């Protein structure tokens, strides 16, 4: 079934609408009504994708979403490398998020950097009964004893902390004073707060505002400011993404004074209010702190997209437009310098990928930002949706990224996603570890678009070459032709649909 020719766009829309109706039929009425608001077909010219978002998941379904703790510890705070992040509560949350996100960093783990470690208060029943504040204070003393080079501590609250009424703020304040003003940040990111990891990002941003920025106050930075100082905001350095982005900004003549939060340090957080411009990659997770810096310190912020050459060029020019002509000229030089590389990558991989269709379901900015990179390779995104997007994400998606007729699914359930993929039969699905094996069993090539399947970086020009290679290796692997059992041709449901 082909969906890529513009002539059958009406047919595509009709099929997608029918598909939505079909998946809704299996739900009890109350749930069908709720889920219907999250599924739609994009219409050209509309200001958003026509779906509700950032609403509670319905219980009892396989939502792919995580929790506020995952948003704060797992995404925003966890990668700050020279601080120790305590998973405060029972052992599990810290264990499952331990080093799972590949936030690459440079440092000596366990001595001056701590990202791939799991520090937990390992709550026991008595801590629930009597409260965990005393234990937390003692934990901080033990951290000071065993890790003298740590530059600060955060307390990442798990579910019970808020429920039993612990006062982690008081403990943090008194210990900070005791240690001569060390940065200690309590973060109320209990997993039951909000509807997904999204609230965790927001809470984590607010903690940076209240416990880092407000504490630093007017303290002078440790470096001489320059007119070209920028901060990278919202890049978690998965597989080195922030590094392959940073190198381009530096080549343009900008000076990156801070990187958030992949390979980030507390000194960089503290320096950020001195930046001339904040360049924001993951809008969803760090727009809050960027807006705060704009209001309080007058620092403008600009979103950028470093996936694929078209968007990289656009973004480099946009960033340069905030600076003088020398930077703008440099941006053109950077674009020209890398053109040979991107031409060679496209020449090599586009013939192998041209016309292939993709369905995405990811978090943060990726459900829209990677669309351009696929298009640079001649591919088409036919369905997309956000794990924890808000309406402003869907607005950006509709206005700048998706084509008419694209299937949109917000907070998709496992059931819906399987059905959609089964019926549409895209050439590639890009989603996470929980979805990966489901679709591979169905014989559909898959890439993890949260973690790049342990590859990467995917950002920047250097990353685009890897992105292209990885999509080729996923789609054109010989394994997929082996999936159907030859002596059972025609028996399986999937194949029957594919043959329709």
């Amino acid at each position, binding site marked *: 079934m082909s969906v890529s020719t513009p002539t059958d766009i009406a047919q595509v829309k009709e099929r997608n609408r029918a598909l939505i109706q079909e998946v809704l039929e299996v739900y009890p009425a109350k*749930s069908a009504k709720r889920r219907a608001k999250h599924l739609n077909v994009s219409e050209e010219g509309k200001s958003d994708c026509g779906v509700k978002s950032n609403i509670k998941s319905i219980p009892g379904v396989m939502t792919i979403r995580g929790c506020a703790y995952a948003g704060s510890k797992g995404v925003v705070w966890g990668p700050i490398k020279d601080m120790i992040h305590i998973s405060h509560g029972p052992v599990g949350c810290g264990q499952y998020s331990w080093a799972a996100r590949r936030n690459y960093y440079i440092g000596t783990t366990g001595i001056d950097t701590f990202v791939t470690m799991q*520090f937990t208060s*390992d709550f026991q029943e008595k801590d629930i009964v009597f409260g965990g504040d005393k234990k937390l204070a*003692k*934990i901080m003393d033990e951290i000071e*004893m*065993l890790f003298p*080079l740590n530059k600060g501590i955060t307390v990442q609250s798990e579910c019970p902390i808020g429920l039993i009424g612990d006062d982690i703020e008081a403990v943090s304040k008194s210990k900070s004073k005791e240690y001569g003003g060390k940065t200690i940040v309590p973060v109320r990111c209990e997993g039951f707060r909000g509807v997904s990891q999204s609230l965790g990002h927001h809470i984590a941003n607010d903690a940076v505002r209240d416990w880092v920025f407000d504490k630093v106050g007017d303290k002078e930075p440790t470096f001489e400011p320059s007119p070209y100082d920028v901060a990278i905001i919202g890049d978690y350095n998965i597989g080195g993404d922030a590094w392959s982005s940073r190198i381009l900004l530096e080549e343009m003549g900008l000076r990156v004074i801070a990187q958030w939060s992949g390979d980030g340090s507390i000194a960089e957080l503290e320096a950020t209010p001195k930046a001339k411009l904040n360049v924001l990659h993951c809008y969803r997770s760090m727009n809050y702190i960027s807006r705060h810096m704009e209001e309080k310190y007058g620092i403008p912020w600009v979103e950028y997209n470093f996936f694929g050459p078209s968007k990289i060029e656009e973004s480099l020019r946009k960033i340069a437009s905030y600076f003088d002509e020398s930077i703008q000229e440099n941006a053109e030089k950077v674009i020209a310098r890398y053109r040979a590389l991107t031409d060679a990558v496209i020449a090599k991989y586009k013939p192998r990928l041209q016309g292939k269709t993709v369905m995405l379901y990811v978090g943060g900015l990726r459900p829209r930002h990677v669309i351009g990179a696929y298009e640079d390779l001649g591919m088409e995104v036919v369905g997309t949706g956000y794990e924890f997007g808000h309406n402003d994400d869907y607005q950006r998606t509709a206005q700048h990224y998706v084509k008419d007729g694209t299937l949109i699914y917000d907070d998709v359930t496992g059931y819906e996603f399987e059905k959609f993929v089964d019926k549409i039969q895209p050439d590639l699905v890009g989603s996470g570890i929980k979805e990966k094996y489901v679709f591979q069993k169905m014989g559909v090539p898959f890439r993890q678009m949260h973690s790049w399947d342990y590859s990467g970086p995917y950002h920047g020009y250097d990353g685009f070459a890897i992105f292209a290679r990885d999509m080729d290796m996923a789609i054109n692997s010989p394994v997929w032709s082996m999936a159907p*059992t030859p002596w059972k041709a025609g028996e399986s449901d999937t194949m029957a649909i594919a043959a329709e």
Partner: protein
Amino acid sequence: MPQDADQVKDHFELFRGDEYKDMLARKRSEFENPHPDAEIERVKEWAKTEEYKDLNFSREALTINPAKACQPLGAVFAAVGFEATLPFVHGSQGCVAYYRSHFSRHFKEPTSCVSSSMTEDAAVFGGLTNMVDGLANAYSMYKPKMIAVATTCMAEVIGDDLNAFIKTAKEKESLPAEFDVPFAHTPAFVGSHITGYDNAMKGILEHFWDGKAKTAPKLERVPNGSINFLNGFDGYAVGNLREVKRIFDMMQVEYTILGDQSDVWDTPTDGTFRMYDGGTTLEDAANAIHAKGTISMQEYCTEKTLPFIAVHGQETAAFNHPIGIEATDSFVMEVARMAGVEIPDELAKERGRLVDAIADSNAHIHGKKFAIYGDPDLAYGLAKFVMELGGEPVVVLSTNGGKAWAAKMQELFDSSPFGANCEAYPGKDLWHMRSLLFTEAPDFLIGNTYGKYLERDTGVPLIRIGFPIFDRHHKHRYPVWGYQGGLNVLVTILDRIFEHMDATTNVPSKTDYSYDIIR
């Protein structure tokens, strides 16, 4: 520019180029406000000392790099072993996202599990509505034959009553009155994943045997000759269960695996996604009450389940993740005794082949010192096998092992001269292990994927056995139980020893006189 379309470099190579190295050095010196290199070096060396070890062991509140997970993970593990069973975790949804990811990363398989997605309002008013709606949704969408409910710490702190909630959900017609919904309370602040396995397994058996939460008459036990088998929480479930079934079939024992995860975490790639596959049928789970006896492969995973079964009149026997000759002998002989069958010659031959392999290879292991960590039963099974191979365990550590486990380990060490210099460390974590590796200087470390940080920091080569194994593929498909499993473990240990030998003898004109082609 370092990148090249013809020879695409990813993170392994890309960042080793000068452009990136320079950029990262600038970042560090200008903006990170780093500690001086000499200071980092000083602390690094200090952290290797006895003094640091003493400080490290004086910790009372902080846990660093624990080798354990939380209860509901174990409950999910137990539940997926039953036919078309959907695990349902009552609490906030982030937990379930973590369990699904964790299992998928280990087994490289999908893991189906739902939650009741409790948020702030449920924290205030309780999670009843979430349970009522959640069960209805789960039942209508995923068409399970059974939904096995467990709790998270959140539901436990607010005190939700699963029994009453499930009853109410049925009254409100979320699912049919006769639909099987066993449940277990599995607070994450008690025990670990092995406790969760135990609670969930007991909950499931209790449901079928003791009158389905007062909705059916209790089953009357009519003893037969069959044997029940419990694997406990086991990262090798796929390989181990298939091997155990092969052994039972060979011995002509009638058996029921209680919680058979081998098929659901090993489904084929053939164009169809099977959400459910294999598993113990619900009928078999109920009929398991009539068995002659129940064998648990992991004592510390079945501390509540086995006594529950014993109360119903069955014989019970528990092992500690038996690996190797003597442990497998005991297992096989107990099965034969309990089932009243003979041990077939073919099994004796398999045994002889493993003895043969040990005789061929033990010289490379004899006298080598091992540090071992893992779940309490696995740590025991591994230590016993290492001693059988002539190796000397010097440290055996279990974050979720308690005093009773440590005493049992000491008995094992006392039983053999190979255990003379070993100490068991209950309730300790991998940061304790790090200190021990520096001060006790074993030759090899046996543990799960997280041990690679210990290998990097201490230089002690890691032999990957345990759960989770994220960074090596397909290990879970190979058994560690039975004589064949023992062979796999032997080969895993030997391969790492040989690799290490080659790596430490390959310097031309310095050490390569020992870079032998025959070992």
